Every structure is written in C-alpha cells, then in structure tokens.
C-alpha cells in the first residue's frame, strides 16, 4: 500500500463480465447481503458469493434508490477526511444522472463486491479513486440503463425515445417525466446490461468540478459520528493501562481491592500486555485503571517485537548512520562505481529522519458486542474491513462470516487504522466483552495511544555523488538503511529490497546517467507502520535536499539544475515551470521581503503514488527557528475528479509535511517513549501554517493519487530554503533540534 506496492490492474479482476444482478432484488429495500443471509446460512452464502461476484459490478450491493429519488451508496472506501465519499457520489452520480448532493454515502460492510483495490480492499496508498474510477462509472451507467428500460416499459415507448435528467427519466415527445424513485423497484427486476456506453468527458457536469463535500454541515455542527461517539445499549466502558514496554505482561496488582471499590467500577481484567477496568463511564474506568499499581514482568524469551529495556532512538539513529555496506540493489542505471573513479569531484552526505506518530485527533476505540446468535458485532475505526474481520475472527475463535464489522467515519487516519498487531484496540474489546458477558466500548486515552501507535520508521540514507568538470552530477549512489513498513506487515524477502524503504530515492526522474539505489536492512525495534506518504515522507527529503548539495558543490542554481536534468521529460519540465510561475518566477535568495525580513526559497520535486508534484517554499529565520511564509505546490495527477478537494488535500499534506519538518520527533529512552501526549510532542499549530498556493495540472497521464502526494516535497523545499539562510547543510529532522540563534538577520 505504499507507492510501489504491486497492484494488479483492477480491471483484470473484473474479467469480461458486465454488471451482475444476482439476487434480482433491488436498489430499493433490503441490501443483497441481508437477502442472502435469510435464505441460506451466512457462511455458505458468503463462500458462494466470493466465487460468483466480480467486484464493483453488482448494482444492488452499492446502490439503493429511495422512493424520494435520493441515493444511498455503499462505498468500498472509508471516509476519513480525504473526501472519498463525495468523490464516489460525483463519479457514480455523473453516469447515473443524479446530482451528487442527493447521495447519502456510508462505508460498505465486508464483502466480495467491494474488493476494488487490486483484488483486495483497503483505503490507502492514495488509491481509492484511481483504482475504482472506471468501475464506478460503469456501475452508475448500468443502473441508469436499467431505469431507462423500466421507464420504457411503463410508458410503452421505445427506450430510444427516452433520456434522463438528474433524478428522473424524461420522454420528450410526450412531455412525461418519471422520478427514479418511482421506477427503482421495477428496474431491479430487469436484466443488467452487458455493456454500457459511458458519458463523454466533455459533457461532465460533476466530475472535474469543485462539488461541495457531502459531510461538511454535519461536521460543522457536531452531528457527524465517529466510532468514539457511538452508543450501544447495556454497554460497559473500558479503559486500559499497557505495559510501558511492549512484551511485558501484568504481574502483581498491588491494590486490586481498592480499585475494585472505586465508584462505578464493574470489574478488573488482565489482557495480553495490559490491564483493563470496566466501569459505568469511561472517565471512571480510566481513573481506576490508572490507579492500578501493576508490576510488569519482563518479556519471555522469544516474545516477538519485545521492546528492549535499553532501547534508545538516539543510539538507533547513530547505528543506522554508521552501518556500512552497499546493501541489496533496488535500482541501477549505467555504471556508478566506474564513474566515481573518473569524477572531477565526489561529495557525500548522510541524512536521517526520526520516528513519528500519526497523531490523528480521534483516539482509537472499539465497541464489541456478542450477539445471541453467536455472531460478534464490532464498531471499529479501520481502513480495511475484510482484514479486520478475519483477524477479529481469530481473536474470537469464530468464523469470519460470523463477525459483523461496522466502519464509521474516521477522525483522521494518515495510515493509523490499518491492521497492526498490538496497535489496534479491538482484540481487547472482544476479550473484555466475552469476559463480562456484556457489550464493551473501549477507548484508548491519548497517553495509551502514544505508547502503542505504530511509528513512521526511523530512516537514514548515505549519499555519494560524482560531479564532472562542469559541475554536473554524473553518478549518484544512495544506500537506505533501516526497515520499511510494507516488509514488516506483508512479508519481507531477505534477498529483495522493501520498496517502502526506498521509494522517493528510487524512482527519481533526473537524467543522472549513472545511479544506484540500495538498501541495507536493519530490524527496527519499534512497531512501525504506514504514515501519510510512507517512504516518501522522508526519502524525498533526503534525496531532494542532497540534490541541492550537489547543485551547490557544482556551482549550479538548484532550480536550473533540475530544469536541465528534466529537459527530456516534458511532464516534469512543465510541472517545474508551473510551480515557478505560480510563485511569481524562481528566485532563490536570500532577498529582503517587504516586511524587512531576510528570506529564501527552496524547491523540490517528487513522484509519489502515481502523481507528480513540484513544491517551492519561502522561509525566514526568527527567534532561532524557521518560519515558513508561503508554500506553492503544482500537482499533476493526470486527470481529476474534484479540484476543491484536491486543493484541500494539498493544504492538508503541506501542514503535515511541515509539521514533520519543523517539530515532530518520537524519542525513546530506556525502551519507552518520552512523550505521551501533545504537550511533549508538538504538532503544527495554526500560527505556523503558511499560505498555500495550489496549481493543478492535468497532463492526461493515467490518474494518480491525491491524499498523500502533496506531502513529500514540503520538507526538502523548506530545508533547502533554510540552508540558504543558515549557510549550512541540514541533514536531520526536525528543524526544531537546531539552534539557529544568531544566524537570522
């Protein structure tokens, strides 16, 4: 799910089948999954469906047209702020001929219809729209075709005389019109068309337009409900205290009787690696569990990923930086080794970036309820319902088909809600609900979240560049040292490079004739995970900042050198020109701004998640820190669905990228994180947000991602600008570690 994760073409999983309508039950009324579950045992139905269904084709698994002609749409992708529910309404509505504002969108349950991400299902990798775009258009067009056919039968006219207007079928000759809601039921009794004609793009009303988000009013009035807000009858509230170091187990509880007697306490429980209290409110549960005096045992020998008692992030960083070797090669062009011998000048630099937490503002939670029929029902923040379903079944000791998953709106995710052993609260909720014989709602406090969140890995890269006599780079060697999250969670082959560890130093487009990217794998003692833009979140910082080192060493302007090395790639040249134009023309500085501050600009390019991005940042120095005034971003995702959401996502990615560049760093001492809340781990506050200027370039290339690509260019653009003002290279993040006092002027 990182940029370079091999993804099968979504279309190959759909084969030659047109849309199916297996149940012959409609867009109206009961959903297909419910229909099947009352006619045959759930397990059998699911197994049969899995072999019969081509994902994204069964109209009634996705669409329910209500009597008032509004549309309930079940999205394969989970909404967490990226605007995917609105995008789905635009794409399906365009072909169905229903205004997106008439859609109500919800996250779909687990099921074979929704496996639209390369034969699986997750919301991530900036893949949702680009992987499902054609399929969802076809789905909307199929539904429209069936409605036209139903209307033709009712009116007794040939289908060719009918057309649609938003939400209704129109017979122009007689002036009659039938709202979709009146014929939705009849339409479902008709065969699904084998093939449908899609609307030509030059007649789009909603795709490509800044359509308003569907969820904005609910989110502006407190009515939007997240997992943490849901209420279940008869629920017990749960809070936990985890072992300070992963792998420790609860030993003696010194004051169990006193805690049991605290107000509202129902019961005290031991869990793997944690203790829990159930109470009649979460505050009482939390207060009680934090009062528990627990002796934590040392991890048993062989405990997977047990946190060493002496682990220090600083020592780990120094170890990564000093680890030698060329590693396993990932990418090689020309003959870099030979070229270094002939180079007029060789420069070297070792870069590093720290661990980061996700810091999504909604703390993790899970509601678990065992139903009388033996099923287990879960309400959990997640980015991959089927994977959570399978894992929950293992924890519960039941079949996956007996696990019902609800996937509410996410209060931010940024990669937080994938299936991560030890980082998801739902296994604890399942065990607690079983033990108590009642539904349980578990919330992790922010402090427990800081202890158990998966971390953006720490990374280090050693660079070596050879310059020719004219100062142009002719050879580049980069060795990434560390571990990537894709290998951690989806299996690592020792003789192969984990692409999530090198994306952003590999896949660069500059015409440097001799280049090599390798990786030295080093196990990361922390529990690492996917963080918005994954490997790109640090690797583009490493590469694009070292690029400026190469430019400076060769006496080249960094913008002009990029132009020169991209001359044979019109897509990238145009994008670089676009960001320069957007910023009023390239100027590096230092220069004096109107307010008298001394400023400089930095530039960076990135090729993340199928999109291309060029970024310029303008900074000054104040009070020993870096101030970022403006960030200009030109983004080329090939083609687009919603320019307003793209602009919002770029703003968001700039904020997170800047937060990581300026402020964020998880520090471990003695195997424990030093910060347990935002007071010890500052994230970007409003007064450090720069103005953000966005230009969208539609090159017509295959559609790329949107949620993540705006991030990777920000740290290098900012650091490149800051280096102009400080006169020194900055090879380590965050910038808040630097003391720049005395440098500003």
């Amino acid at each position: 799910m990182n940029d370079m994760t091999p993804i099968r073409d979504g279309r190959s999983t759909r084969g030659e089948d047109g849309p199916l309508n297996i149940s012959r039950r409609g867009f109206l009324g009961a959903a297909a999954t419910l229909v099947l579950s009352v006619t045959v045992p759930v397990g059998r139905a699911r197994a049969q469906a899995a072999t019969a269904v081509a994902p994204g084709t069964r109209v009634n698994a996705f669409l329910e047209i209500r009597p008032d002609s509004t549309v309930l749409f079940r999205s394969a992708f989970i909404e967490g702020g990226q605007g995917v529910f609105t995008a789905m309404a635009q794409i399906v509505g365009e072909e169905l001929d229903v205004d997106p504002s008439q859609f109500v969108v919800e996250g779909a349950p687990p099921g074979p219809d929704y496996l639209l991400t390369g034969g699986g299902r997750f919301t991530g990798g900036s893949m949702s729209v680009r992987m499902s775009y054609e399929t969802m258009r076809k789905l909307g067009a199929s539904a429209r075709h069936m409605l036209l056919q139903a209307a033709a039968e009712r009116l007794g006219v040939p289908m060719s005389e009918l057309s649609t207007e938003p939400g209704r079928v129109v017979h122009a000759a007689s002036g009659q019109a039938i709202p979709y809601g009146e014929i939705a039921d009849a339409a479902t009794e008709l065969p699904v068309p084998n093939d449908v004609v899609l609307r030509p793009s030059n007649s789009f009303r909603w795709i490509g337009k800044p359509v308003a988000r569907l969820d904005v009013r609910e989110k502006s009035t407190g009515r939007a409900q997240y997992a943490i807000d849901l209420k279940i009858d008869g629920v017990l509230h749960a809070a936990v205290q985890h072992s300070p170091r992963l792998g420790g187990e609860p030993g003696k509880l010194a004051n169990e009787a006193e805690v049991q007697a605290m107000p509202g306490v129902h019961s005290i429980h031991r869990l793997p690696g944690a203790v829990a209290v159930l109470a009649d409110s979460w505050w009482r549960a939390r207060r009680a569990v934090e009062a528990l005096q627990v002796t934590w045992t040392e991890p048993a020998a062989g405990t997977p990923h047990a946190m060493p008692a002496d682990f220090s992030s600083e020592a780990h960083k120094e170890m990564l930086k000093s680890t030698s070797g060329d590693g396993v090669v990932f990418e090689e062009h020309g003959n870099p080794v030979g070229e270094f011998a002939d180079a007029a000048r060789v420069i070297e630099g070792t870069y590093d970036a720290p661990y980061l937490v996700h810091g999504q503002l909604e703390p993790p939670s899970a509601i678990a309820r065992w139903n009388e029929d033996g099923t287990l029902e879960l309400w959990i923040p997640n980015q991959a319902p089927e994977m959570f379903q399978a894992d929950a079944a293992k924890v519960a000791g039941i079949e996956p088909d007996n696990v019902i998953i609800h996937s509410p709106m996410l209060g931010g995710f940024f990669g937080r809600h994938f299936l991560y052993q030890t980082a998801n609260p739902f296994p604890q909720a399942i065990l607690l609900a079983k033990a108590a014989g009642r539904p349980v709602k578990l919330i992790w406090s922010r402090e427990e979240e800081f202890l158990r969140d998966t971390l953006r890995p720490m990374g280090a890269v050693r660079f070596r560049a050879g310059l020719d006599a004219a100062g142009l780079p002719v050879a580049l060697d980069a060795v990434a040292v560390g571990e990537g999250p894709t290998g951690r969670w989806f299996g690592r082959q020792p003789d192969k490079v984990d692409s999530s560890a090198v994306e952003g130093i590999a896949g660069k487009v500059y015409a440097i004739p001799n280049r090599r990217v390798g990786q030295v794998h080093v196990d990361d003692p922390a529990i690492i995970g996917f963080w918005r833009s994954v490997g790109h979140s640090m690797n583009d910082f490493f590469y694009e900042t070292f690029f400026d080192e190469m430019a400076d060493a060769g006496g080249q302007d960094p913008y002009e050198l990029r132009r020169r090395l991209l001359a044979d790639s019109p897509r990238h040249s145009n994008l670089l020109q676009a960001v320069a134009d957007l910023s009023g023309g390239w100027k590096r500085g230092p220069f004096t701004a109107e307010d008298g501050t001394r400023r400089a600009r930095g530039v960076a390019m990135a090729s993340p998640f199928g999109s291309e991005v060029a970024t310029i940042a303008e900074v000054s120095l104040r009070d020993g820190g870096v101030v970022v005034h403006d960030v200009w971003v030109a983004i080329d995702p090939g083609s687009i669905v919603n320019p307003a959401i793209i602009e919002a996502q770029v703003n968001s990615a700039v904020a997170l990228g800047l937060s990581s560049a300026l402020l964020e760093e998880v520090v471990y001492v003695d195997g424990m994180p030093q910060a347990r809340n935002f007071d010890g781990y500052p994230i970007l506050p409003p007064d450090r947000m720069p103005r953000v200027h966005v230009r969208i370039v539609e090159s017509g290339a295959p559609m790329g991602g949107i949620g993540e690509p705006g991030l990777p260019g920000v740290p290098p653009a900012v650091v490149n600008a800051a280096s102009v003002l400080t006169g020194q290279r900055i090879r380590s993040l965050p910038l808040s570690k630097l003391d720049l006092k005395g440098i500003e002027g």
Partner: protein
Amino acid sequence: MELTINGSTHQVDVEPDTPLLWVLRDTLGMTGTKYGCGVAQCGACTVLIDGQATRSCVTTVDSVGGMAITTIEAIEQDAEGRKVVEAWVANQVPQCGYCQSGQVMAATALLKQTPQPTDDDIAGAMVNLCRCGTYNAISAAVRQAAQA
C-alpha cells in the same frame, strides 16, 4: 449536581472533580464535544462557559455549577453560532472533521466578544489544533462569519 446546558437544567450524579467533557459525553450522551488529548492541548473539547471558550477536558464539573454551558449541539440556536456554521459550510472547512466542533465553538466565542476581529485577534483566539491542517480555511471562514 445541577448543570445548565444549552438552556436546560440537568441533574447529574458524578464525582465533583469529573471533567465536564465526560459528563457531557457519557452521562448526558452529548457526543458533539470531542475528546482529543485530555490535557487542554488540542481544543477539540471546547465549549462555551458564560460565553467564554473553555476546554471542557480539564474543567471539573463542580466548577461550572450555575454557569451557562453552551455546546456544539445548540450552536445553530445562537446568532453568532449560525453565522459561523454557515461560513464553515461556505468555506468547506472540515476534512476529517473531528476537531471542528471545538473550532466552531472557539470562533463563536471570538465573534461574541469581538464582532469585527483583526487578523491578530483571529490568530489569538483560534489556537485549537487540526491534524488535517484546515487552518487557512478556518481563518477565511472566521473572517467571512464576521462580515455576515
């Protein structure tokens, strides 16, 4: 203990030092006010106490007896609140939306006290965290609400 919330009185039976946030969410079922950090860092739990933006996660319930508590649930019954919500919608502010209850409450408190805020006033009052980085949209929406 008696609380006055959105113009209605509520009797609650909780420990006096219970944070108002958890009385709202768990005791009274008003979940529009959000838990983000619990230590007054993020502002997701912002409510109005006698018109002042207040972080309910560190405000004990015994300290607000007799005071007028306003939560996001009643925001559209408030003249400034309505303007703020409309500006939030017009500027398409929310992304994930989790912090936005608190942001809307902070903006409403600002406009009650300073109907025509300067950019510095806005920067001084709008200090809640947003991990989605909607800060520029928030500032634009506050300016628009002030002109409405």
